[in-house]
């Protein structure tokens, strides 16, 4: 009964497969002609690591500027400190969506830029000196939003703010916040340089734990939640029905909300196109990946459509006040127009791009059929 043996062998083979885990098949075997490893390398070496280096440098600068300010507080040195602060905040926008590896592990984004900040809790922290900035309950008492409050919002006049910052407890809290920003971002950068770069690049398969899938999901989440909703939608009242001008990014300094938003947009666009952080040359990235996949199945030029949609959004932003808060109070419809344009790009990304790349939105841990 040779047939029976064949059948039994088949059953055994099936059993063998059952015993395999679900994530077994992802070793780095040969691929089609699009080089995902090269794309990951570009991302790591020419976008992510240089962006983090630049960001960490800006924080080193902020730290030393703060030290000089404390040695010689004056309205002039306060201005220097403020410009170092906004420089770092702009630089942050370049790294905000790399929520992967160490950044994800330590919650870099939550500790760096959760707003609106909690004024009362900050004052409370300063007075009691009894706080642990590593707790999630302190997300909104630290990072850039808290710096914005301390540097711009603690009094009505610059003299008042200067007075506030000259009190030891206050200046100490400011220094603690700057040190903490520097510490956690440096930790992320060092991890990229020491070990995570190799892990990131070698994980070039397609699965829920693969680098491409994960970073693309992070990227979309960022555009949807932090750029579309956080910077525009929530303050413009899209999700509440009432405008919330106090919920713009950097409401105390007020005039930087648009610059921060544009910077974030630029980072998002550059990542899509694969623009090298230093050389500004275009490398393999999502754009070439989408184009490669499109060539196989689709006729429409999705990349062009996505990029056009973004430029419509940026054009709309160009027309509004550099102070989102006052724009909302004066004519919120302009903010809503920006929101609508970003929204259209989100649909192109989440529906069309994800289908073209066959990456699942929000990895779902369940069976399908």
């Amino acid at each position: 009964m040779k047939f029976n043996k064949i059948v039994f062998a088949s059953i055994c083979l099936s059993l063998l497969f059952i015993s395999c885990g679900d994530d077994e098949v992802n070793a780095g075997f040969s691929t089609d002609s699009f080089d995902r490893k090269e794309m990951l390398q570009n991302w790591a070496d020419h976008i992510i690591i240089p962006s983090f280096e630049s960001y960490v440098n800006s924080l080193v600068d902020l730290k030393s500027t703060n030290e000089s300010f404390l040695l010689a507080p004056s309205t002039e040195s306060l201005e220097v400190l403020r410009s170092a602060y906004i420089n770092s905040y702009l630089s942050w926008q370049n790294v905000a969506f790399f929520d992967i590896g160490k950044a994800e592990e330590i919650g870099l984004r939550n500790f760096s830029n959760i707003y609106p900040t909690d004024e009362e809790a900050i004052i409370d922290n300063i007075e009691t000196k009894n706080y642990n900035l590593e707790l999630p309950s302190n997300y909104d008492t630290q990072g850039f939003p808290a710096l914005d409050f301390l540097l711009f919002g603690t009094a009505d006049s610059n003299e008042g703010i200067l007075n506030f910052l000259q009190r030891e407890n206050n200046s100490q809290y400011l220094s603690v916040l700057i040190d903490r920003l520097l510490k956690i971002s440096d930790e992320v950068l060092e991890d990229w340089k020491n070990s995570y770069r190799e892990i990131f690049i070698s994980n070039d398969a397609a699965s829920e734990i693969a680098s491409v899938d994960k970073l693309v999901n992070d990227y979309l989440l960022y555009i949807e939640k932090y750029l579309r909703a956080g910077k525009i939608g929530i303050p413009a009242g899209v999700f509440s029905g009432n405008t919330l001008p106090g919920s713009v990014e950097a409401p105390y300094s007020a005039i930087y909300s648009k610059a921060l938003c544009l910077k974030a947009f630029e980072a998002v666009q550059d990542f899509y196109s694969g623009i090298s952080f230093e050389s500004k040359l275009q490398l393999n990235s999502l754009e070439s990946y989408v184009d490669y996949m499109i060539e196989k199945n689709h006729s429409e030029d999705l990349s062009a459509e996505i990029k056009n949609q973004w430029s419509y959004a940026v054009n709309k932003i160009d027309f509004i006040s550099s102070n989102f808060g006052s724009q909302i109070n004066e004519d919120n419809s302009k903010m809503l127009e920006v929101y609508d344009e970003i929204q259209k790009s989100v649909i192109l990304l989440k529906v069309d791009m994800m289908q073209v790349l066959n990456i699942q939105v929000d990895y779902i841990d369940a069976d399908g059929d």
Partner: protein
Amino acid sequence: MVIDSRSFFSSYFSKNSKAAPLAVFRILFGLVMLFSISRFAYNGWIETLYLAPSFHFHYAGLAFIKVPGVYIYLIFAVCGLAALMISIGFKYRLASVVFFISFTYIELLDKTYYLNHYYFISIIGFLLIFLPAHSTYSIDAYKDDSIIREYIPKWTIDVIKLMLAIVYFYAGLAKLNPDWMFRAMPLAIWLPSKFNLPLLGSLMHETWMHYLFSWGGALYDLSIVFFLMWKPTRVFAFIMVVIFHLLTRILFPIGMFPYIMIFSTLIFFDANFHEKILAAISNILKLKPGVFQNDQAYQSSFLNLFTLPTLILFMIFQILFPLRSLAYPGSVYWTEQGYRFSWRVMLMEKTAYANFKIVNGENGKRFYVQNDDFLSPVQEKQMSTQPDFILAYGQYLGKHFTEQGHENVEVYVESYAALNGRKNQPFIDPKANLMKLDYRSLCKSHIIPLND
């Protein structure tokens, strides 16, 4: 002719067959179910799929079937225990009733998690209640000689084969659509992302591979049962079954489905093949040879008077029910009217996005909903692609915000879907107030037709 067919039926239904194939099916089915339920619990899905979400998508008319809080663990435990009892044939009738009810109950809790193979399991569970699958190699029969039957009516085995034939054949028929056959969709989307498979990886982006898999899959589904039924091709067909389903296992996250089909198709083999399996089991358990041999045939007036007509009606229903989508206008892939319960397996790639707007009908004030405040990622994904989910969720939101104190609540959805590689297009009429619709009116006039 009439007399001839009547005599054919009466002679067919009085034919007997060895009980071994059904016993092996029972043993394997119980084991695979036990494994499947344990795996579900082990993966933490009872928590993430049933307990964590605050909202569940009910089947029409079955909203009273609710997640019973933490007692759902108990239901899973009972279901797993019943599966084990089916496998060993201990209090078989009771166990099969309990298994069918508990498993089906779990599946009816939330249609987000509908899978064709869960539906298949429920159907088999239902059939097993009626079939004499415990008449040999069961604890029941071991303890009570009067249960032992060496022979059972042939149709009690054939009904399982018929069910498998329905599954495969309808799955094959569903593949005979222009996207699958002439655009190799959705495989042309799915396969390229499997670039890192051993051996096959470098071929996965080739267009001819997409067509090979599409046409091969359709041909397989349509023909495999015939090859399994015909003795000369049976072993070859079974090897194809194993290759086909293991391939789908490697390519797609379809859980236990491949194994269930592989084990189920063993029922097409002759009785002496199954007797060898049973003999091997006896050997391991050190049972006396011949303990289940009594040369008796299963006869029961109940079986003929009640069970047979019931199952005939049930199988006629199984043949007709998957065809209901023909009664609805529009593409079944787009509207999904009649999509479930009709063996459309791994058939389309649909990506969608649904954004809900809550409007005060009196003063026009509006705001949008963040879906992840209410839905889990799985639920949101399923919701955005299916009109009935969109309606149910929209109405839930309306109720929720009304309870929160909002007045004159109207709910609108801005939704876009992309089907099988087409560019995204508007899905549900954005001007339709979901609070004022029922499912029928939604389908009739508020699904924007697929623009091909």
